[in-house]
């Protein structure tokens, strides 16, 4: 399903860097926060609609483990959960089938393990790369890391940008770096992690988003999950608006991935609603929208069981990932 969706729109080839446009971007923080704060009150989904939307949220999850103590064992468990994210009896009750997560997301070390575990499915494997999370290892090594993951079979590469380029306004350097990463990815899709919690201002978020898209990012992603502040609705709103702007200007659709701190079913709905409102239904599909998360799934499962049974559920009733 994912592969066919991916082919539904051409990959963003990037554009030349337009510095005038970058520097003219300005974001009014208070106004953005107001829109972000009121959105949750403007839209909601109930009953069957909520169940369906939560299933869609699962389809958009990059089920992630990025810990120093990852082993083949827990990565294996993660892959099993990606394949069967919801108890079969619940899926049967809702009359849906073929629900998997959008991808699994791991360090390079476990790419091969995941490919093996997910063989026969269409679930892509994403690898965080380029000296994740700080992105400050030598450039050559960062590029080599991408190439190694691609060689190991990674379908998607989540790179981290050099925050210093943003903080010093060196857009050319950011553009060049992103282009090199994109090139190193080859056919693998590249997600540009902006680490928005370290960029200081929403205007920087907007500018970094636009530069990365101009340099050919397939996705722009908020955070590594390691910054003190990760995916927030205001940041997502700004990035979405830049995606819309880029699409209007070039016709290319770039995906969005909030990551870090998305733990509740309600939060995942907030992000889906934001995508629908700001970008439209195309961006509710996993080829253009992902949520990087590890514990989110278990909350969604509980909500789905509540929908099916009418009783509030408990964590131990759902399989660990």
């Amino acid at each position: 399903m994912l592969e066919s969706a991916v082919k539904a729109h051409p990959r963003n080839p990037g554009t030349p860097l337009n510095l005038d446009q970058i520097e003219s971007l300005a974001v009014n923080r208070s106004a953005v926060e107001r829109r972000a704060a009121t959105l949750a009150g403007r839209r909601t989904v109930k009953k069957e609609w909520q169940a369906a939307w939560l299933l869609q949220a699962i389809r958009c999850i990059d089920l992630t483990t990025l810990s120093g103590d990852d082993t083949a064992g827990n990565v294996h468990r993660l892959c099993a959960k990606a394949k069967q994210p919801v108890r079969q009896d619940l899926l049967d009750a809702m009359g849906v089938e073929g629900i998997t997560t959008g991808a699994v997301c791991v360090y390079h070390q476990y790419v091969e393990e995941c490919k093996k575990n997910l063989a026969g499915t269409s679930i892509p494997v994403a690898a965080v790369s380029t000296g994740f999370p700080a992105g400050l290892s030598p450039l050559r090594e960062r590029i080599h890391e991408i190439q190694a993951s691609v060689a190991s079979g990674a379908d998607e590469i989540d790179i981290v940008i050099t925050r210093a380029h943003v903080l010093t306004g060196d857009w050319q350097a950011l553009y060049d770096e992103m282009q090199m990463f994109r090139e190193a990815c080859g056919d693998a899709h590249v997600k540009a992690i902006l680490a928005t919690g370290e960029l200081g201002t929403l205007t920087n978020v907007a500018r970094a988003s636009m530069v990365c898209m101009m340099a050919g990012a397939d996705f722009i992603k908020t955070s590594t999950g390691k910054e003190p502040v990760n995916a927030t609705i205001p940041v997502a709103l700004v990035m979405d608006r830049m995606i819309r702007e880029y699409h209007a200007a070039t016709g290319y659709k770039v995906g969005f991935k909030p990551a870090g701190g998305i733990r509740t079913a309600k939060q995942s709905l907030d992000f889906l609603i934001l995508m629908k409102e700001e970008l439209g239904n195309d961006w509710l599909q996993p080829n253009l929208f992902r949520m990087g998360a590890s514990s989110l799934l278990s909350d969604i499962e509980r909500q789905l069981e509540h929908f099916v049974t009418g009783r509030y559920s408990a964590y131990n009733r759902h399989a660990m990932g």
Partner: protein
Amino acid sequence: MSKVADILDSMEYGPAPEAANLAHEWLDAHGRRFGFYVDGKWVDAGSHFASFSPSTGQEIAQIGQATSSVIDHAVKAATKAQRQWMEIGASRRTQFLYGIARQIQKHSRLFAVLESLDNGKPIRETRDIDIPLVARHFYYHAGWAKVMEAEFPDYEPVGVCGQIIPWNFPLLMLAWKIAPALAMGNTVILKPAEFTSLTALLFAEICQQVGLPKGVVNIVTGDGETGAAIVDHPDIHKIAFTGSTEVGKIIRRGTAGTEKKLSLELGGKSPFIVFEDADLDSVVEGIVDAIWFNQGQVCCAGSRLLVQEGVAEKLYGKIRLRMETLRVGDPLDKAVDIGAIVDKVQLDRIDELVRQGVLEGATIHQPNCSFPSGGWFYPPTLLTNVEPASTVAQVEIFGPVLVAMTFRTPAEAVALANNTVYGLASSIWTQNLDVAHDIAAKVKAGTVWINCTNQFDASAGFGGYRESGYGREGGREGLFEYLRPKLETTKASTAPTVKPHERTNSLDKTHKLYIGGKQARPDSGYSLTINTTNGPVEVGRGNRKDIRNAVEAADVAFLSWSSATAFYRAQVLYFFAENFEGAKAAIIESLTTTGSSDRAANLEFELSLDRILHYAAMADKYESETHQAPMRALIYTRKEPIGPVALVCPSESPLLGFLSTCLPLIAMGNSVIAIPSYANPLPAMELYRVIEASDVPGGVWNIITGTPEELEKTLADHDGIQAIWHFGSRENGEIAQRHSAGNLKQTWCLMGKSLNWQTIPSREFLRRATQIKNVWVPFGA
């Protein structure tokens, strides 16, 4: 396919209904038939009319029609209650207001659902905006009740207040009216709009629950006739009205000649100004909040989009795109942005105006949207290719209709923004601080929102300039609408004080008018004879053309005088004081010719000098304040001059009275057209040369002598004059008030009374000489 699988495919929102059963139970418990809440009791109505739910067009309740005898009953109750309400003391009043706030919060959802049912506005708005603001208003004013005596020692309650509110924010407007009135020790008779009476009736139950003393709050329902009975009731001391400019003018005329205090919050055609450097995506959301909030039925709706030409098409494109995602429908659906129009009449009016706009050349854009059947719905609408001359650019549509025009420069933006008879609000969008504050100062509007719109808080006064009305609601400034200065008043004298004397002047003196900084012969070519102790003296007999010339001069002068620095104005007034002292001998002589003793003349001179120095001092010391709304924003007041102001000076104290009334206006940056004492104009006329010598710019201070018959009606009718102060006779004061309705001049008439000019309340004069603009500036790096 299962339903869930279907939805998974379409990813549509689906219905999200807010349950209305408890609101219906409340209506049923009352038999869906309501009386009035008077003197702490429910009173049956003699006749009723139907109230409809706009989203279905179905009747939901029968509302009582209050007759004048009901109003009379309520006024008697409120009068009796007012004494008691003051006697229980500030702490108890605070506790009652606090109790009301708590009780509103406890029943917040019932209020929200009922309001939505009754008005047609989305539950999201009543739940997230209206009702929380109502509670906030009572909390905030509970505090003012506590500190009233300490903060306003020179003021007292007005008494019994008649309050008439509109249908667009039924409970919120009730809160804006009742909270400050009660906090300042008044009692009220409130009439909700006939379309939307229900939440006011529920509020009456809250008053009962908290044990509010009977008669403090009286809720009467009915149509315009009930409203008229309130306006006309002789024992009501204050009318507070929110509604249309048309009705506002009727009320102004109707209360002319009475001592009723009046505050009017009326219509608008508020500009929404977008500069090319603005965050355009945020601007689009601002527009949604400006014109598609409450179906555009908002007096301060940002209904006139003014956008810098270079980004206009880009912005229009973004707006059109955004309009596609607005959801119009059942107001009780939690995911609906635009609900129903309050009534069929209003729906037809919107439709008619939009058709006219298109007929006059506007390009219309409406998104594809379907409505529930039976209700009164109108789609969000954007009209481009609109020019200032178009009907839709001038008339308040009061619906979800945005008209768009372009500008080239900041100056042109201001000119277009101010090209309206209204002046309620304005929204300015730019990332440039210099531009924002500059435009905020120049736009004529009571509220300016920078990079935001339709923000409200109890701490910030709201109200209009020009024909959007006068008075403020909210903040310290709003409290004065429910306070009366403790003034020492006497009966104004009108008869000439000097009996005819033989002419003793050796050399004839020419007394002209003083217009535009020059002495001018009266247009009429006639003179009036004034009796002095030196015999008869001729002064110019001004007429309507002299008034016209003076207002033209005052209008031009206002531009530069009002934008000059306060320090500069202070310097001019100090220099005036210097020259005034230099002319002492001539001025004292002039005073003695009015029959004053040497001693009295000297005293009046010294007090006058003192007053000049006082206002010179205050010129740069009556300063702005900031408000503490619960948001990250700087909210500052600007105490702005009103414009060219007409002034009928007191007849007594011909010098001190003249200066005491002219100077606060001039110090605050107004220009004046003053009519000095009819009986004894000569001391004021003695000042021509002092004014000339003191660098007072021509046109700031115009002085016209003549007769009330020839001057006052022209002044009160003149649309170029923004306020009129009248210290003359009761009869003439009434005429001034009645004729002020034409362009809704602010009026201050003492109704034939006069002050002790030796000890006037200076701050009250300064307050009257200014109007407050609140500028909201959210910030965030």
